């Protein structure tokens, strides 16, 4: 057993910043990550960090833009915290040597980005995420923070009181990918989940193969609500064969989208008569898919993004990296031919419900970054707002977990009596054929008669270690059945087909059925590779279970929310419905039973109330 004050799970931007924050607050902190930190997917972020640094800008403008961009589903205290903390936290990165792009006077550069009223996106070339990740890892090395790399966290060690709000997290159980050893990691002060997005629930995503929603699924099974999971951002320009992202910068510089007939469809088919290609991401993604669905796509799959008219000089100067990406990943030379693009899953706005200190309803359990939902992004994330979220809320979670007093949180967490419950009849019972048979209900049964309830930290951790060792043994010893790749492929296909840019009631119900079939198939899953050494077959098998749980919460949220808000579009009600839907969707296990419920969005800020307006640009 390993023991530290604070355990951070995941070592991307949020995890690294959390670890540094906890370390600065005096805690003995360790990071446990299934990758080496520099492999984390934060490194793929291109755009930049929104922060109000300059004369003429202020945090209130940033907050306003973010609230509007969220389609009024962000919580004001979270958004205002982001906007207030981002400037200082961004300058801290500069003080740590991050190689930001520079102005003539030597100050850090900022550029305009979609949905911003001031050019406040602070950037380092088109590789801001790479530099952010490496700069923070360097600081982790400098501080001598312990990193357990290539250790895969399989579960959380949480007490089993009936009400999740009464539970405490005492650590995690992980297995050493190199040796296969399953061990407990005791956290005396707190566990911070920073595991990134669940993009692998879809088969066409800009996300890394390692983005499997592990933190979300573990927290969900432990009783923490998943918030606003239906809000998934689809980026309109990804390469068809790999999902590699082609930056919005191409359209920003004047790139044009064409359909098979060579029509500039954004205008010619009236999708966005003012902004054309530069309309917001959700609008362009829907337009592209409409073209394909109506038979005007190329090879029935994609459209063309053409930048040739910009001239090679301008392309080389500002978009060099795009040429490399198109060439390396699609075999297309962007200087001589248009690039094929289609919408791809890009970002999960929802996640583990936290307050503005990163705390969840379970004592000692925190979350930060894409896996968390504070909520800052609401129904739609603005470009340039993901990276400041990592550093602002990563730092806060780290400091709070280490014991720093950040003041009382204004955002409530956890299910409570009296919340508005959803009573729609669902085509499936959430969690059935999976979660229902492990963890959640079992612990409830134990707790129900008052016996066998464990609350001492070591006991909880040991029990979890034993359970996880048994799980590994079972998967390894089973000789036949179905393999994870088949289940994962089915899940990804169903999600991409029916929980995509366009959503219909029938399609969402179909997806829930498919997810149910994946759950059932998973009961028969086995690991073929008999080796304890670097068994990625085993790791991916466990990840696939996490993906199933997360996919279900996304689809449930999408089914119950019958309105069109931000990234979530519903055929049956193609308008934003503030009357009924200015509220967060929460899916959680309460006392061993799944439920869907709502919490009103907080529009009251420090000094003002944000009034929902039509979101037009």
């Amino acid at each position, binding site marked *: 057993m390993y023991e530290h004050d604070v355990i951070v799970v995941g070592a991307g931007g949020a995890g690294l910043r959390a670890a540094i924050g906890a370390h600065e607050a005096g805690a003995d902190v360790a990071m446990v990550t299934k990758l080496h930190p520099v492999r984390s*997917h934060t490194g*793929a972020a291109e755009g930049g960090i929104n922060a109000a640094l300059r004369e003429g800008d202020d945090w209130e403008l940033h907050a306003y833009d973010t609230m509007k961009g969220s389609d009024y589903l962000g919580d004001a205290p979270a958004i205002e915290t982001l906007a207030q903390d981002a400037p200082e936290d961004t300058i801290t990165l500069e003080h740590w040597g991050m190689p930001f792009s520079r102005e003539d006077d030597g100050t850090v550069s900022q550029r305009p980005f979609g949905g911003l009223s001031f050019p406040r996106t602070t950037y380092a070339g088109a590789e801001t995420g790479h530099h952010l990740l490496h700069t923070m890892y360097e600081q982790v090395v400098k501080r001598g923070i312990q990193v357990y790399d290539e250790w895969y966290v399989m579960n959380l060690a949480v007490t089993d009181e009936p009400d999740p709000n009464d539970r405490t997290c005492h650590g995690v159980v992980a297995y050493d990918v190199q040796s296969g050893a399953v061990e407990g990691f005791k956290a005396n002060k707190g566990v911070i989940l920073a595991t990134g997005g669940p993009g692998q629930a879809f088969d066409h995503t800009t996300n890394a193969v390692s983005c499997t929603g592990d933190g979300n699924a573990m927290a969900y099974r432990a009783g923490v609500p998943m918030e606003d999971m239906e809000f998934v951002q689809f980026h309109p320009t990804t390469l068809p064969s790999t999902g590699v992202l082609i930056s919005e910068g191409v359209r920003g510089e004047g790139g044009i989208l064409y359909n098979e007939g060579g029509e500039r469809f954004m205008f010619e088919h009236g999708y966005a008569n003012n902004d054309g290609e530069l309309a917001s991401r959700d609008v362009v993604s829907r337009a592209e898919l409409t073209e394909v669905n109506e038979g005007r796509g190329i090879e029935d799959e994609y459209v063309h993004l053409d930048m040739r008219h910009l001239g090679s000089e301008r392309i080389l100067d500002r978009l060099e990296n795009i040429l490399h990406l198109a060439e390396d990943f699609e075999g297309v030379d962007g200087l001589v031919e248009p690039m094929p693009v289609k919408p791809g899953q890009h970002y999960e706005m929802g996640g583990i419900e936290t307050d503005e200190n990163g705390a969840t309803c379970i004592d000692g359990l925190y979350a930060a970054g894409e896996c968390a939902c504070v909520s800052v992004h609401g129904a739609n994330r603005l470009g340039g707002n993901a990276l400041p979220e990592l550093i602002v809320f990563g730092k806060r979670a780290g400091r709070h977990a280490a014991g720093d007093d950040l003041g009382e949180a204004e955002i409530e967490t956890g299910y409570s009596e009296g919340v508005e419950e959803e009573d729609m009849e669902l085509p499936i019972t959430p969690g059935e054929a999976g979660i229902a048979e492990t963890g959640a209900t079992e612990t409830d049964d134990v707790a129900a008669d008052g016996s066998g309830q464990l609350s001492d930290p070591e006991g909880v951790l040991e029990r979890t270690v034993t359970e996880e060792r048994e799980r590994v043994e079972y998967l390894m010893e089973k000789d036949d059945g179905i393999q994870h790749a088949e289940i994962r492929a089915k899940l990804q296909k169903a999600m991409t087909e029916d929980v995509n840019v366009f959503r219909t009631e029938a399609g969402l119900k179909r997806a829930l059925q498919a997810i149910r079939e994946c759950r059932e198939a998973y009961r028969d899953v086995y690991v073929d590779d008999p080796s304890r050494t670097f068994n990625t077959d085993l790791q991916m098998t466990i990840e696939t279970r996490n993906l199933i749980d997360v996919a279900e919460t996304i689809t449930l949220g999408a089914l119950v929310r019958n309105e069109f808000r931000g990234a979530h579009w519903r055929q049956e009600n193609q308008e934003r419905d503030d009357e009924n839907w200015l509220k967060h969707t929460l899916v959680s296990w309460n006392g061993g039973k799944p439920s869907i419920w709502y919490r009103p969005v907080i529009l009251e800020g420090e000094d003002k109330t944000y009034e929902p307006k039509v979101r037009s640009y």
Partner: protein
Amino acid sequence: MSTQQQEPETDAEPEPESQETPTDQEMSGLSSPQQKRLQRKHEGAAERERAAAEDDLEGDTVHLKVFRFDPEVEGKQEPRFDDFHVPFERGMTVLDAVIYARDEFDSSLTFRHSCRQAICGSDAFFVNGRQRLGCKTQISELDQPVRVEPLPHQEVVKDLVVDMDHFYDQMHSVEPYFQQEDLPDGELEEQRQTRENREKVKMSTRCIWCGACMSSCNIAAGDNDYLGPAAINKAYRFAMDEREDEEIKEHRLRIVEQEHGVWRCQTQFSCTEVCPKDIPLTEHIQELKREAVKKNLKFW
């Protein structure tokens, strides 16, 4: 076990640009790394067009020969090559091909990979006798059968996975973190850096720690203590950053001019040739040598 003894296939061995130490003039005469890279891309594209015309891969299968080893599984303890025949698709990379082989044929086939877009640095393999990132190597540019092996000169953990600990140790040994303590006091005040200086360190900051350079380096293969191109480049990234004070720079130069530091480099350019991010590693090492001389630091 190690792949130390493996002979690279000679036909794919990159030609060293020069065995001599280039002078400054020769250095500056080289076109920029970006230009060279674009040049190579155009050559690659032309090559692919020819390949497509002569031998349409579409609908065909790709023949992979993949290195297999597992220290604890019977039949895999002796290294061997497995053959996989994978259906070709336009745009298919070496990584796509091994993923297909794993998901469809053998789930125990093991390799690191994550982002699929050449930024996480996980999937440097030895492909047809050369260090390359699997995710940014088009199958259509390679002769078949495509041989996929773990990086040479590192311990093999299993299949294509090598032990990276030594690489990380070397990276950490150059104090790879910004050390300036004297920072501006003003609220939200950043350190100033000229555009020129940012440009000077730009290429060095693009390193993704893939280890291709270290694996390709003959000196590193023979001297386990040699810092290696990536770590020296990391030192360069800070030593050349004007935001750090002169004395910190001197401290950094002392680290890299130690016995197993920059003076070991024989400017064979193999690291520069294989770097997937086009970092002019050899030039950076040369420049640090010159800086060390200028500072009158001890010669080894």
